[in-house]
């Protein structure tokens, strides 16, 4: 344990020894991480915005006009018993007509009708959000003989799923590319360190230091530098969001949308820092392995 503490202390001394270089390297890492991290947070917020605009997707079930009241009751019971149905609302044909009449411009039209042409209807909230489940439930309900038509409002869900999936893939690709950049940055930083410390390293090897002993401070350096970059990236993601959040929320309010823009959750911030630290460690490991064995050090 003490050898690890010694290595961590050495790594911290190296970081503190050149504060400007440390800050600049950490900033490069932070900027590389900020883009995908910001993308991830924005995807989360866009998804929540979409939910706010459209509400939960529903299936409208329209019955045939001549269905007797007792059959309507039986169908309601059957639908309520279906485990895929989370909630159910019955809209009688008279109420539907009243609602239509209440809408601007339709009052005269409904007044001129001799009979109510609208059917009884049920509005279902499916338990499962996936488009495939909607389709399955709709197909199941369509087999009821008294059902004239089912209307599935799932297209937007499919589109949203596609957009979010595309955005997530793009973010993942961006994260991979910039993660590689982070490894390269750390690789080069460690390479320069090994070059400047080659005398010290060769003296340590001469005095009986194992390669693990020599490697360890560099690995901790990469890890700590990555962690520092991760913390800065978290700050770079969170601060702009907190600045723009009130304006966006106020704008959403004007469209009667309750929107709460949030930065990364604590676990997300932790994952970001851990990811950055891991990449820093990886870059350092590759660099040390490469440069301690290629004759750079005696």
């Amino acid at each position, binding site marked *: 344990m003490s050898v690890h503490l010694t290595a961590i202390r050495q790594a911290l001394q190296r970081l503190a020894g050149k504060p400007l270089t440390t800050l600049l390297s950490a900033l490069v890492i932070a900027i590389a991480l900020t883009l995908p991290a910001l993308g991830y947070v924005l995807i989360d917020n866009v998804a929540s915005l979409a939910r706010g605009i459209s509400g939960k997707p529903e299936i409208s079930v329209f019955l045939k006009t001549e269905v007797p009241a007792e059959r309507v009751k039986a169908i309601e019971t059957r639908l309520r018993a279906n485990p895929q149905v989370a909630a159910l609302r019955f809209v009688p044909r008279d109420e539907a007509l009243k609602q239509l009449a209440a809408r601007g411009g339709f009052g005269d039209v409904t007044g001129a009708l001799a009979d109510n042409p609208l059917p009884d209807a049920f509005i279902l909230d499916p338990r499962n959000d996936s488009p495939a489940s909607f389709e399955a439930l709709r197909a199941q309900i369509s087999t009821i003989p008294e059902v004239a038509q089912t209307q599935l409002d799932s297209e937007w869900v499919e589109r949203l799923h596609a957009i979010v999936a595309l955005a997530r893939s793009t973010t993942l690709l961006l994260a991979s590319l910039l993660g590689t950049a982070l490894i390269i940055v750390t690789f080069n930083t460690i390479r320069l360190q090994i070059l400047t410390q080659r005398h010290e390293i060769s003296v340590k090897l001469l*005095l009986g230091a194992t390669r693990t002993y020599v490697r360890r401070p560099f690995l901790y350096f990469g890890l700590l530098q990555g962690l520092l970059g991760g913390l800065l990236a978290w700050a770079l993601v969170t601060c702009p969001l907190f600045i723009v959040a009130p304006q966006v929320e106020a704008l959403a309010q004007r469209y009667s949308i309750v929107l709460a823009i949030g930065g990364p959750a604590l676990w997300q911030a932790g994952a970001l820092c851990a990811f950055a630290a891991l990449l820093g460690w990886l870059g350092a490991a590759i660099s040390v392995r490469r440069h301690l064995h290629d004759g750079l050090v005696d």
Partner: protein
Amino acid sequence: MIQFDHVSKHYPGGHEALNDLSLEIRHGELLVLAGHSGAGKSTLLKLIAALEAPTAGRVLVNGLDVGRMRQSQVPYLRRSLGLVMQEHRLLMDRSVFDNVMLPLVIAGQTPADAAKRVRVALEKVGLAKFETAMPITLSGGEQQRVAIARAIVNRPSILIADEPTAHLDPAYAREIAALFRSFHAAGVTLILATHDDTLYSPYGARRVELAHGKLLS
């Protein structure tokens, strides 16, 4: 005990540093390696410390075949040796104390124990008052004494020195030689490569002369 068994060492480019050399160094012996520059003295010492590997033959240090040992075993061999190089190889950005402490830190000694041993080693080489000094502020002889303190701080049974007095004036050279003789008197096996064997020959040293990688005497 150290044994060279028909050892040859060829460097890339064709230079033959040692040629079919056989030599035995007994425990507690004081061995002086003499010879002109390029005779193979430094190569012989480097082979003992596994800083080089023989091209042919075997080098045995306390029964271990140095040329064939795994890379992971080499550090433990070096910890059992005390090495004093011609060019000191001190860390100029660390104090005298930290330089001498380095082998103990590498060996995983606790700071308290290490500090005690560092002070004892500095006392032995007469640098107790210089522990906070930076090596750059010391004379060549004092720097060499720091290197000696660093070599003995781990209490090695074998002490190897490559031209330890090469760049020192005669007074400093005599001081350093006396220091080495005192370690030998304490039971340490001492192997020195030097141009000036008169510093050791009157004190029971075995003199071995090399020329063109071969043993002359």
